[in-house]
C-alpha cells in the first residue's frame, strides 16, 4: 500500500492517538479509582461524557474473567502452579499485558489466591 502524502496521514493518526489518549485520561480522571463511590458519579458523568465508566467486571466473577481473558493468548495455567504471593506478581504483570482494568485484576487475583490455597 502506498501513501501519497505521508505527512497528512501522519498528522491524522497522531491527532487521533492524542485525542484517544486525552479522552481516556479524562475518563480515568473522572472515574480513575475503582473504590470511589461511584454509581451516582458514573450516572452523572454518563450524561455528559461518552466514556463514562460502568465496569462490567463488577458483575463478573474472578473465575469467569480469568478463563475468558487468559485463554485468548495462552493455555490456562492451573492456579496450583503458583503460590498466592507469586500470583500477586503475575497478575500485576498480566494486567499490564492484557490491558485488564483494576477491578478485573483484583477479582482474578482473589480467585487465583483462593484456588491456589486449596
Amino acid at each position, binding site marked *: 500500500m502506498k501513501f501519497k502524502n505521508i505527512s497528512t496521514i501522519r498528522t491524522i493518526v497522531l491527532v487521533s*492517538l492524542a485525542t*484517544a489518549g486525552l479522552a*481516556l485520561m479524562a475518563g480515568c480522571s473522572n472515574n480513575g479509582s475503582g473504590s470511589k463511590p461511584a454509581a451516582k458519579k458514573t450516572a452523572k458523568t454518563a450524561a455528559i461524557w461518552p466514556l463514562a*465508566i460502568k465496569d*462490567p467486571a463488577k458483575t463478573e466473577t474472578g473465575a469467569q474473567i480469568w478463563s475468558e481473558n487468559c485463554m485468548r493468548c495462552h493455555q490456562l495455567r492451573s492456579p496450583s502452579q503458583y503460590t498466592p*504471593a507469586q500470583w*500477586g506478581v*503475575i497478575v500485576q*504483570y498480566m494486567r499490564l499485558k492484557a*490491558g485488564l482494568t483494576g477491578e478485573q485484576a483484583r477479582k482474578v487475583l482473589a480467585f487465583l489466591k483462593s484456588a491456589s490455597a486449596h
Partner: protein
Amino acid sequence: MGKRITLPLLLAAAVAATTVGNVRAADSSNYQQLQKKYSVLKSQMQAMQQQMAHMQKQMAAQQKQMKAVQQAAPSINERATRRAIKRLSRQVMKLSEKEAALEPGNIQVLIAGDVNVQFQNKSGGNSTFYADSSPMIQVRIDKKIFVNTAFDFYTASGQAGGSAADIGAANINYELGDYMTVGGGLITSPIGGIVGNYNPAPWNRWLVDGSLEDNLLPPNELGIWTRGGIPAPDNLGYLTYFLFVSNGPEFIGTSGVPNQLSYDNFTANQNAKTVGGRISYLPIPNVEIGYSAEWASPTNSGALTKSDSWIQAVDFNSYYFNKKIEGFVKFRGGWTWEQVGQGGILPGNPTSPPAFGNNSNGGQIDVAYQPSMCGIKYLDKMMVAFRYDRTDGPVTGVQTSGAMHEQRYSVGLDYWLHSNAVLKFEYEFDNVPDQHGSDAMFMQFAVGI
C-alpha cells in the same frame, strides 16, 4: 224518660268531645316539641358525625405518618450503619496496608521466563540445534509499582561456538488508577499486537518459526508510555490502549550504504523520537481487534538527512471454545504496512550514498485447533496449527534484507505436556518468485517458567 236519658248522653258526649279535643290539642303541642327536639338532636348528631369523620380522617393521617416514621427509622439506621461500616473498612484497609508494609518480605520477587531447545533443517542450509533461555525478574514493590527485567541468552546460530545475550525488558510501571498505568524503560513494542510484537514466548507460540510479518515490526521501544484497559460505553465490551514516545530508529547498512531500518537503537539518534501506540477493542472477551501505528524520523550517523518512517498494523485475536467441537479453535491474524520516506543527502556531502526508500508490507493468518474436550487420551493434548504468511519487499528504492516477495504455508503439530510445556513439530513451505524457496523443518521443546 227519653229526655232524661238523652240529656246526660248529650252532656257526656259534649264532655267527651271536649276532652278528646283537649287531648288532641295537648298531643299536637307535644308532637311539635318532640319534633323540635328531634330536629335539634338530629342536627347535633349530624354535627357529631361530621366531627367523628373528621377525627377519623385525622387519625388515619396520623397512622400513616406513624407508619412512615416507623418504616423510615430502620433505613436511616441502616444507612448510618453502612456508612460506619465503610468508614471502618477503610480504616482497617489502611491499617492492614501499613501493617503489610512493615512486615518483612512485602516486596515480592518472581523469576519467570522461558527456555526452549530446537532443531531446524532448512533446505539449502545446514541443520542445527539451537537453545534459548529468557529469564525474567519480576518485582512487585507494592500494589502500584511493578518492575520487570527480561534477558535473552541464546546460541548464535551460524557462528561457530557463538552465543549471545540481549536485554528484552527493563521497565518500571506505576498504576495511576483502575484504568491507567504509566511507565518507562525498555519494553516490548505494542505495534502489531499479539501476532507481532507482544511476541508470544516460544512455549506460547503455536508454531516454532516466527512469521514474516514479525520482520517488519519493531521489537522493542525504549521510552515512556501510558497503557491500560477501560470498559467501553454502555457495557459494549472493553477498550485497551498503549501510547508511547520512544527513541527513534536509525538507518543502518553495509559498506556505508544505508539499506535497512534498525529499531535496536538504544540511543535517540540526533534527537529523533518515535511516537506511536496501539488501541484495541474487545466486544467480547474472546475477540480482540487492534490497530497500531508509529511514526519516526530516522536518520543515520552522517550520510542522510532525516526521513519519515511510518508503520501501521491491524491485528485480530480470538478463540471459540465449545463442547460441540470437542475443544477450542483459535484464530489470529494481522497485516502491517511499513513506509520509509526518501532520505535526502546532507548538504556539502555530494559523495554520500543515494537516497533511501522502502515500502514493505506483510501479514499472516493463523489457525489452531485442540480437541481438549474429546476425552481421548493423548489426543486431547494435541494441537494442530496452520499459518499463511507473506511479505512484500520494497517497491521502490533500496531493498531491505530478505526477499522482495515471499510467502509461506506452515503446518504444525503440538503436544502439550502441561499448560506451560509443549513439544512442537513444524514444516514450512516457502515460496519466493523465480527462486527456490527455503522449505524448513523444525522441532522444539519449550517450557514457560
